[in-house]
């Protein structure tokens, strides 16, 4: 953009308008080539030798020369294409269900563990669609007063308005969600636990920070930090409805949606993330969809419990 603008500044004479048009065409062609490089995901080892020659200090030297001010300048130490030192990555432990209250000590504790997708109606009129492999705990003696549950796994919450004036609280190891009246999803099964809000407002808090999110926003806990994002996908509730819709979606988005829908971790290597995919599925198995990718796009895959690896998806 800035290059285009600056070039427009350089050439102002009408005879040379043509030149800039040509240049722009070429520039767009370049941009397409860049896109192609991304789409084909070809190796970029041709960049191995490419270097940064510290333009900033070079400009100082040149500027001093064109102003005929010939101050000698020291040669600056080159900044090479340095790869930042590896920082430690905190892997979040998932599914570590910590008993918030021991049921022997606290009377009235109800614990639910779900083997399959199910729906739960709570005494205050809230309802929860809970995915398999999730667990939920609350104290039925004081629930209507406290509205406090401990939850791990994945569930979609439709929380009733408070009669007691207490906000609904949901806790797990990573964070606490305080519901300010709304519909939303909590998922602690993924590598980066997340909360996705469909309606209303919730507050998500970790030990260190607190964030309010509203409709079509989500937060993930990445390396212990709260990261807020806009929700882009039309397939957010696909795991509830069973229906997946890909309208020329790029592969990275498709894979993200598949992960969300089947609640698996997918590692995708040598995949043309910029390619698009168009398909609709209703209650299909992950294997069925991956078989289709295998037949039409040459992918290979392996499913191992929650861990899925896919490789070599090409555009055609």
């Amino acid at each position, binding site marked *: 953009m800035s290059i285009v603008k600056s070039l427009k500044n350089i050439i102002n004479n009408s005879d040379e308008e043509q030149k800039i048009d040509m240049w722009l065409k070429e520039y767009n062609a370049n941009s397409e080539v860049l896109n192609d490089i991304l789409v084909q995901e070809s190796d970029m080892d041709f960049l191995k*030798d490419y270097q940064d*020659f510290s*333009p900033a200090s*070079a400009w100082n030297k040149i500027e001093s020369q064109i102003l005929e001010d010939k101050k000698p300048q020291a040669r600056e130490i080159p900044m090479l294409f340095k790869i*930042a030192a590896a920082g430690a990555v905190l*892997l979040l432990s998932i599914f570590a269900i910590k008993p918030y209250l021991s049921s022997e000590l606290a009377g009235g504790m109800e614990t639910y563990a779900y083997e399959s997708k199910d729906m739960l109606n709570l005494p205050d009129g809230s309802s929860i669609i809970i995915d398999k492999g999730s667990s939920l705990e609350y104290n039925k003696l004081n629930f209507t007063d406290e509205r406090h549950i401990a939850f791990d796994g994945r569930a979609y919450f439709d929380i009733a308005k408070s009669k007691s004036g207490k906000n609904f609280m949901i806790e797990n190891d990573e964070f606490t969600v305080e519901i300010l009246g709304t519909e939303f999803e909590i998922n602690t099964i993924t590598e980066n636990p997340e909360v996705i809000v469909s309606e209303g407002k919730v507050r998500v808090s970790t030990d260190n920070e607190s964030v309010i999110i509203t409709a079509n926003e989500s937060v993930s806990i990445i390396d212990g930090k709260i990261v807020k994002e806009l929700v882009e996908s039309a397939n957010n509730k696909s795991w509830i409805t069973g229906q997946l819709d890909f309208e020329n979606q790029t592969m990275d988005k498709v894979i993200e949606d598949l992960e969300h829908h089947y609640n698996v971790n997918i*590692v*995708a*290597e040598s995949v043309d993330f910029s390619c698009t995919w168009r398909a609709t599925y209703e209650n299909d198995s992950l294997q069925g969809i991956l078989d289709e990718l295998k037949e039409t796009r040459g992918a290979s895959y392996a499913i191992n419990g929650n861990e899925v690896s896919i490789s070599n998806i090409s555009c055609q």
Partner: protein
Amino acid sequence: MELSKAQFKSIFDTYYNPLCNFCRKYLNDRGDVEDVVQDVLVKLWQNKDKIHLQKDVKYYLFTSVKNKAIELIRSRKRKGEIRDSLIPEKNYEDPVGDEVDSTILKEKLYNSIRQLPPKCQEIFVLNKVNGLTYNEISEELKISPKTVDNQMRRAFKLLREKFEITK
């Protein structure tokens, strides 16, 4: 040619780094490369009134850099400082057409990659530029293959967005 200082600066911004990388084909020493490219740019400014370009200024710049680099090699050989048997041919036509474009393309790609967030950049470079597999990266950086995958997807997303904006 008409050339204001702002215009000259934007030429510098666009071509300085690609010119240096191009010049490295002829000269090994980083300092030599910088001297040659800076000389060529300063000449462009000083002679701006005398230079009449048939083509885009980039061809002038790349050709001048090539010729200047060859001159330097020759003069060193004359002085006996080097004994290279082969000296590239000087050429005032357009010897570098395709190379000009591929170098500028590299610059854009390089620049875009450098604007990725650090972790994302590191992983992208290890995979795409250095050719490490996800598993090798995950061992090297002590992170899970899934994290590598996440960062790769992020990198592609960001690069794609960037190129669409550039369009």
